[in-house]
């Protein structure tokens, strides 16, 4: 079977698993919503755009860590070994990555709806903000999938995942925060084009590196 | 403890340089130009780099002496 067809059948498996044990998706969603409520109780409404913007990204960052930690962490050792014997490592990575990207997009956008409903939506250029949200969530999901794979090789604890993950996703997060802030300020596409490009390039680089390096990580 | 002492020594050394009088320019000029303070920055920066190198050397030395002890023990 080719890598792409393997990827799709593995992706289907991820969704099936999700259907059986619903806590994974709803757990992270609950985390997101309760964090937004905490923000609501402590801030009421946020007038300052930089604060509004970075608070949402910080919330999303922690949601991404909790969400992505499940991708390799939740699998038992036996199941990983089974996957190793039947599937191409690249297909395993791509399926997990795709699943995480979809998860993060759903979380990011539903979270944004809650967040703007409760705390306010001071964004002037909505399409650009959505593009920033899309690129940022995709990047977070891809980076944390790979980091989760690395952490799963090292005793798999959540602290290690955070220590390894934060420095790696920080440049991505900084660029995403900048683009979404420009969008909120309504500065237009020309101003944020550089950052948008860097953000897109970083996504590609992370995906490419993960794709190339994962086979080395996978074999035991 | 020794690391701490060496650091302390360097800080004392660096701060004692504050007390040295200006050579050619008067005090008021130095204050207005930060000339004195800016030269001190160079001295402190160099002291810190030297301290870093000394700490590294010290750590290498400890590793070597531990290795020496091990080899001696095994040879007996």
């Amino acid at each position, binding site marked *: 079977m080719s890598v792409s067809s393997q990827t799709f059948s593995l992706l289907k498996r991820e969704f099936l698993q999700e259907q059986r044990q619903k806590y994974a998706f709803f757990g992270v969603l609950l985390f997101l919503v309760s964090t937004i409520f905490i923000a609501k109780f402590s801030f009421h409404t946020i007038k300052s755009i930089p604060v509004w913007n970075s608070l949402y990204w910080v919330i999303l960052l922690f949601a991404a860590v909790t969400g992505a930690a499940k991708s390799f962490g939740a699998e038992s050792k036996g199941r990983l070994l089974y996957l190793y014997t039947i599937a191409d490592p690249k297909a395993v990575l791509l399926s997990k990555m795709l699943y995480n990207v979809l998860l993060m997009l759903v979380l990011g956008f539903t979270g944004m709806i809650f967040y703007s409903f409760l705390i306010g939506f001071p964004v002037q250029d909505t399409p650009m903000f959505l593009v920033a949200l899309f690129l940022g969530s995709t990047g977070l999901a891809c980076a944390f999938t790979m980091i989760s794979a690395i952490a799963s090789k090292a005793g798999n604890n959540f602290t290690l995942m955070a*220590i390894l993950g934060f420095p790696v996703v920080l440049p991505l997060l900084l660029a995403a925060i900048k683009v979404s802030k420009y969008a909120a300020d309504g500065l237009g596409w020309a101003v944020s084009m550089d950052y948008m490009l860097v953000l897109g390039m970083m996504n590609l680089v992370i995906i490419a590196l993960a794709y190339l390096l994962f086979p080395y990580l996978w074999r035991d | 403890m020794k690391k701490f002492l060496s650091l302390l020594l360097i800080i004392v050394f660096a701060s004692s340089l504050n007390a040295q009088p200006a050579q050619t320019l008067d005090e008021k000029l130095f204050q207005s130009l930060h000339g004195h303070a800016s030269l001190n*920055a*160079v001295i402190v*920066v160099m002291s810190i780099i030297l301290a*870093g190198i000394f700490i590294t050397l010290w750590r290498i030395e400890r590793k070597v002496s531990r290795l020496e002890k091990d080899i001696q023990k095994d040879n007996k």
Partner: protein
Amino acid sequence: MKRNWWKFLCAAFLFFTLIFGLKTPVAPGILLNCNSIIPAYSAPFKLEILGYNTRFLQQKNSFRAWLINWDKNKPVHICANSFSVKDDTHAELSFQPVSVLDSMFFDLAVYNDADGKLYMDHAIYSTDTIRGGMDPMCNVTIKNEKQDHFAFPFRTVLYESIRNLFFHVPMWFSMIALLSWALWNNLVFLRKFDMKNDQRANTAITTAVTFGVLGLITGSIWARITWLEWWGDDVKLNGTAITMLAYLAYLVLRNAIDDEQKRARVTAIYSIFAYVMMIVLIGVLPRLQGTDSLHPGNGGNPGFNQYDLDNTLRPVFYIAVAGWIMLGFWIYSLKLRIQNIKLHHNSQ
């Protein structure tokens, strides 16, 4: 002896850096020691100037001072009608009333034969913008455009601390050189699975972290003097701090895995990620528009242009960088040899 030639070169380069970096004087320069707002077209005024490393008194005969006002990109010189030189570094200039032409800013130039022309951009300005009257124009003839001996440029804010260029900046070059060597060894390791490469990469990274920490501390000291804060909002500063966090995370990861082969593989992969992120953090992000950076060459400016690094700084700077990089590799090679002896001894 043949293998150690570069260590002698390293020592020679560092000696050169120390001697020339500290011995070379800072070029003469001038500062204003009075109010920089002047009344336009009404009253005569006086300017008190401070010299730095200047020889006003020695060269009193050739002393001259004039203001430059720009009239549609054409300079208009306004000479001081009298001046009094108190000592080598203090002088007082008096001017006739001036009228404001195209620009409300006046540049100040002071000349003597020994120091050359000392220039101060936008030294004074006038709040008044009335045009009219004739300025006491003068033609200035100059013998020496610049002073004749070798000196580092005079920069306000930096002053003497410009010498830190040879001590603070090479720390980063050293760190990046060692990290690049580690990256290369990580890549080779993933090709050949030779533990030698893993050993090299790990030792290079621990040495690089030492240099990175030194760079952060020295940068903080320099920032306190020049930017008046220990830790500013500078992209490059925060970027390097995050890079250090990534490589510290690498060391944590290394301690978390017991199996040697697996540890080498996993950490190699993580350090490749960390290297790429470092390139983005300190190579790409600071160069974009709209970032707050006080470092030269950032926030959209080209890096290390002739304004930041002039011809007197350049030779010393390059030699300093080469010297510190070699010192980094020297420390690295010592650590590596100890590791090898330990491995060899344990396997016996």
